[in-house]
């Protein structure tokens, strides 16, 4: 499966380093090249500066949270086409519902499972 996403660029937004590297490693195994950001604002700026194929974002973050980032990306005509995947624990269902309402395209529950992550990136890259 590795290499399927070669050349694809992912932006990973989370305020915790361990979460970022964990997801980064999983994505890199799939062939993605990964850029990290520590909060929604930094993520938004990076997304504006460089083209990304997919954005992964945590929800609860300082400065700008993931919900706002979803909103900013989905209401920005230049960015709206980028799929946004929110990351959250299963106990935070209400955030996920809010995030989907804000335009998030998919979600990956924490702890991140490799198989599920693959499923999500596959369906998004297939356009579903």
């Amino acid at each position, binding site marked *: 499966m590795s290499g399927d996403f070669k050349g694809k660029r992912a932006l990973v937004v989370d305020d*915790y380093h361990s979460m970022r590297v*964990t997801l980064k490693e999983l994505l890199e195994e799939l062939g993605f090249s990964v850029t990290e950001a520590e909060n929604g604002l930094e993520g938004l700026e990076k997304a504006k500066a460089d083209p990304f194929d997919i954005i992964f974002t945590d929800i609860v973050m300082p400065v700008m949270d993931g919900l706002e980032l979803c909103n900013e990306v989905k209401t920005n005509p230049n960015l709206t086409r980028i799929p946004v995947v929110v990351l959250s624990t299963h*106990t935070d269902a209400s955030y996920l519902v809010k995030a989907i309402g804000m335009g998030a395209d998919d*979600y990956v529950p924490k702890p991140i*499972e490799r198989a599920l992550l693959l499923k999500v990136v596959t369906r998004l890259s297939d356009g579903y």
Partner: protein
Amino acid sequence: MDTEHKPGEVGGGKNVVDRMMVKISHLDTLLNLVGEVIITSNNISTTNRRIQEFYDRQRAIDKVTMDMLKMTEVASNRASSEMHSLVMDIRMVEIRATFQRFRRAVRDMAKDAGKQVDFVTIGDETLVDKTIAEKLYDPLNHQIRNAIDHGVEDPLERQRMGKGPMSKVTLRAYQKENNVFIEIRDDGRGIDPESVAKAAVNRGIIEEGALSSMTTEEKLALIFHPGLSTKVTASKISGRGVGMDVVKSNIEQLGGDVAIDTKIGEGTAFTYRIPQITAVNILDCLTVLAGKSHYAIPILNVVSTLSMPASNVHTTLQKGRSITHLGSLVTLFDLNELLGGKPLDPADEITIVIVEAKNGRVSVRVSELLMPEKLVFTPLSKMFSVQGISGTTTMSGNKMGMIIDVFELINRSRGVVLGGETAPVERVGRAQETSGGALQSAAVVAGGTAVEEVDEVEKKEDISGKLVLSSDIGKEIGHREEFFVELEDILRNVDEQILSLENNPSDMDIVNRIFRDFHSMKGNLMMVGLTELGGFIHEVEVILDQARSGSLEITEEIIDILLDSADIIKAAKQAIAEGRAPVIDRSLLKSIEKYKKPKEKKVEEPVDIHNRTFHIGSLERINLFAHRRAEKHLYQLFISFTPKSQQAFLVALLILKRLARIGHIFGCVPTAEEIENQSISNQLKVMFSSPMDEAPLRKFVEDVLMRYYDVNEYEILKTS
């Protein structure tokens, strides 16, 4: 540089952006590499000297070569010493975290003791080696307890003394030359040297007659004597824990000392002076030869060396072979044999090293004493320390040598005496210690017998096995340690945040910060597979969320719940580190429950889709007719999710989103609102229109649905 913080104010604006987390183990690896460089650089110097001698004799090597050699040496020396100091710098941390850990403790202790204490920290930004920062915790903790319990007076007494009711305990850190100074100051009653001296006489520590010749300083210094306290009745607070003698020895272990400055009625200050570590992983050793192998014995463990005729060795049935040293019998072993090799060849004259560790004293026979040397120490993994070797080193002349773990060696010698066979004894803790600890390595061993420590190891493996089992990701994700480190980082600050919230209960910024802290801790715990604990934190988070939305007032009780919750996480983390299973205090959950407002859910029952038709509003109905007229096709979709799916509501929302791309959704059962409120069982019914013909639409929908795990069955119907 010193900045004084007002009580309750969160310590200065720390710069988060230019910091990063570095694993201590990486640093230690780097440090070991630096050690290698130092060795190489020493070897270059030696080689250079030899070439110089050769050059002086032969005059055959050309000047340029000589200069180049010289340059290599200089460059290598400079690089190695710069690298060393760089790594030492990286190991430095701010004392802030250590200081702030006491903020909570001071609050609780003052409450318990019925005193009002203003806790002030100064010089939070002072840098100390990480190992030192950790080792300062215990002595500081004891001293702060002492200061609050014995040092400062209660408000009434203070009033009588003409002082304000609020007493002050100050922790201050500063650096001077190569030393770090840590000061614990209180403005309490002070220590009376005469009563210290009297207490010492009463307990038989000194003779009454000796008093007259003692200076005030000497009398004061008596409080460092084991078992002496100026207040006889041990209180709840400072009656437990280490005494001043342990404080002193803790600081001495760091190579420092403790000074007292006190004035009756005005207060007391204890000042620790601690030299900054300048060389880590460099060990003074005695090198010896046993058979063909080179060994290094840490000088700290060497009592004496001697050689004697073999005939001077006593042999007794009970103790085996032994020698007489300074009038007492010391058991004699063969170093090679103890380390699992062949015994040394018999000789008329034998060479002996007497070694000592916390667990005893033995003498070992070696072939030859070489020399004392400063050696760069590379710790071995735990596995090897079983064999009585704690590390490897490169001795002068580029010879590989092994560093003997004397504690372990003595353990092995016990096995020889008792069972004839060496018992494999494994230790924990020390092998994993940071290099600062390794410096004291074989000499300093954590308390407890070897047997207890073996149990520890087994338990630890057991627990870590369980942790991995409880979550498959444990195996997949290689950052468990880092999650724990982050957890620790958050925990260190969260108390400080909660206490500052206590002083500013309506500050939403602080509430948000604490909320994020708990939320992140939850995520971290979930990631390492501790879902139960994660679930507990979620409950706390719910309360905080209410506070965020303004529907919950921050009272003292809430502050207590938050502090207690942080304590539970701390205890759980500690338990895991020590190999125990974490325990969650149910009673706290109950008090959390009390504050939790029930979620406002309109429909609690899951919707049965078969008994309900689409509810289509009048606007939708108009649209529906319009779509029919425009010859768009109308479809119905039934989906059933796998029974165990806990996320059906999310998957349902995502599927609705996808359908909206190819058409217009007129209605669904349950309604979108119901789905959002999680009132969905395992089924979903959707009515939508699309310009797509049945065959391509069927393919699209199938393509979407096959991409979700949770979809069990589905049916697409085209209605006319």
